[in-house]
């Protein structure tokens, strides 16, 4: 169980490495699945993000914190259907 030598971590060629920050991931997820509208139509991003997160957490049966917490981020990274949750 003990590694005789330090673990090398490499970046594999061709791997779609997502270098999005958590916030960028959240914004694209909320927009893609209909919880927010495109940027041009929102007045204050912070307020709408909280509302959108709460809406997503309600729709997906998560704890409604309005925050980008660990379980919400894990849900955003989980495999799922591509049809939006809200709207057309």
């Amino acid at each position, binding site marked *: 169980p003990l590694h005789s030598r330090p673990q090398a971590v490499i970046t*594999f060629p061709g791997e*779609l490495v997502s270098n999005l920050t958590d916030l960028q991931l959240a914004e694209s997820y909320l927009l893609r699945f209909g919880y927010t509208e495109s940027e041009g139509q929102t007045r204050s991003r912070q307020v709408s993000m909280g509302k959108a997160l709460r809406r997503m957490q309600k729709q*997906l049966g998560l704890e409604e914190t309005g925050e980008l917490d660990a379980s919400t981020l894990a849900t955003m990274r989980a*495999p799922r*259907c591509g049809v939006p949750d809200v709207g057309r």
Partner: protein
Amino acid sequence: FLTFEGDLKWDHSDLTYRVLNYSPDLDASVIEDAFARAFKVWSDVTPLTFTRLQSGEADIMIQFGTQEHGDGYPFDGKDGLLAHAFPPGKGVQGDAHFDDDEFWTLGTGIVVKTSYGNANGAACHFPFTFEGQSYSTCISEGRSDGLLWCATTPNYDTDKVYGFCPSELLYTYDGNSDGAKCVFPFIFEGKSYDACTTDGRSDGYRWCATTASFDQDKKYGFCPNRDTAVIGGNSQGDPCVFPFTFLGQTYSACTSEGRQDGKLWCATTSNYDTDHKWGFCPDQGYSLFLVAAHEFGHSLGLDHSSVRDALMYPMYSYIKDFHLHPDDVSGIQFLYGEQVRWAPLLWLWPHVPSCLPGRGSGPVPTAQVPDIPDQTSTQAEDTTTPAEPDLATGDDYPMPTEPSPVDPSSDACKVNSFDAITEINGELHFFKSGNYWKSSGSRKGTIQGPFRISATWPALPALINAAFQDVLTKKLFFFSGRRFWVYTGSSVVGPRGIEKLGIGKEAERISGALQRGRGKVLLFSGEKYWRLDMKVQKVDKGYPRLTDDTFAGVPLNAHDVFLYQGKYHFCQDRFYWRMTPRYQVERVGYVKYDILNCP
């Protein structure tokens, strides 16, 4: 539950669907079975019916694709988005698309459906024991030709049941080569290839030529995935190469070394350090059945549900004993009503082609290497009906389990499928393994027999593949393999070879005949048919033709084709498709209940 804005729904209940292409991860029959069961989830609780079309425009068009695949809603590589579907309507509406960068299984790991051998198409059983050693992948041990095989039971040493694993050396799928295997090396754009390639394609599907030169012959097929094919990485679909070298170390199995996420990967050449070719090793994958059932919910008009256990909940999770959630049932019955129909008829899809040539020539992986059947195989057909593959692992979907083989000599109603069916002197005759039964159209439900074929037509063998009575001369034509006999009353001519009729070697046997006016009879074999001129006893020029071109909507390689009461009948397994002279499929049903009128 939620429906789409405006309660979008279909305005008819007899829906059609069509599978446009296939994923290399699963055998086509496994994919078709998964889709059929996914539709059955919804038809079990509504008046909806789903009929699969082989061509033309269907209500629900199903396809696999990667990244941008033509609808403006790109997929995103492995994991993440798995599939999507459009609400009911015309054109792309109602269609369902599946991301082929995913690893499609039945939810519990790779499904390797075998072909040939003596396992009748069963799936590999991993691990299995061979010569005392345990294997969890397909192997070529015991063979000198390098073909990969596996046992379909835990222990080959005791059970001796095996099959060959998917490999481009055995067959290809889709393309334009009718499943022919790859030819290596082949020439493509002047370059020689001795393995499958994605060159020339933007969708990443691996293909090969099925002749020595694609440049010249333009014949190709897609390569089925080996069981060790990698997913993603930079060589999707290529098999792992073991051992491989990584950072100077040698690995003979998949490893998570070099990664923080713990995902297993392997190199697809012997040296990752120099070649940098890699991909993820097969994992549990995603259940095509569960994802399809969800997407077909969208195709029928259901939107995402917020009930975590509902099928229409948007996140994927594998469920072993799947049952539709009450929330889903209320949703779909809100749209289509709750009338519950009889389900049995819905087992209408061809599962496993029952005419797969089984060699059964003893234990394969020994020094004596048995033949692989090629197109000219003249081995007499295996007369037992192969058992259906046990695909229930993972989804625990009840499969019909009839005792097989059942002794057909006594009860026609117990016969799974007949060797041949034809009308003689106004009575339908059913042939099976040396026996035949008669059922009169006028006296429905009365079956006479069994009679011995040899007692009535002494010259005939036990296995009759097809038979018909000439409308003008009342002569009887019988076919078995590539031989045929002609009875005029009690006198017989034959056997003669069907090449005398002008039928080429591609016809291993005649599976049925349709009498047409003006002294013509159509003879069917595989997916083609010939037109025989009865006067000159020769097939007309311009044949064979593809059955699908004329008789769209019937199974392509029916094992019985006959004319009865003016309608064309095509039989596959236990079912029949009845077509009008205007080439419209007007009915699909059970041979046993509708034609034999069994109780």
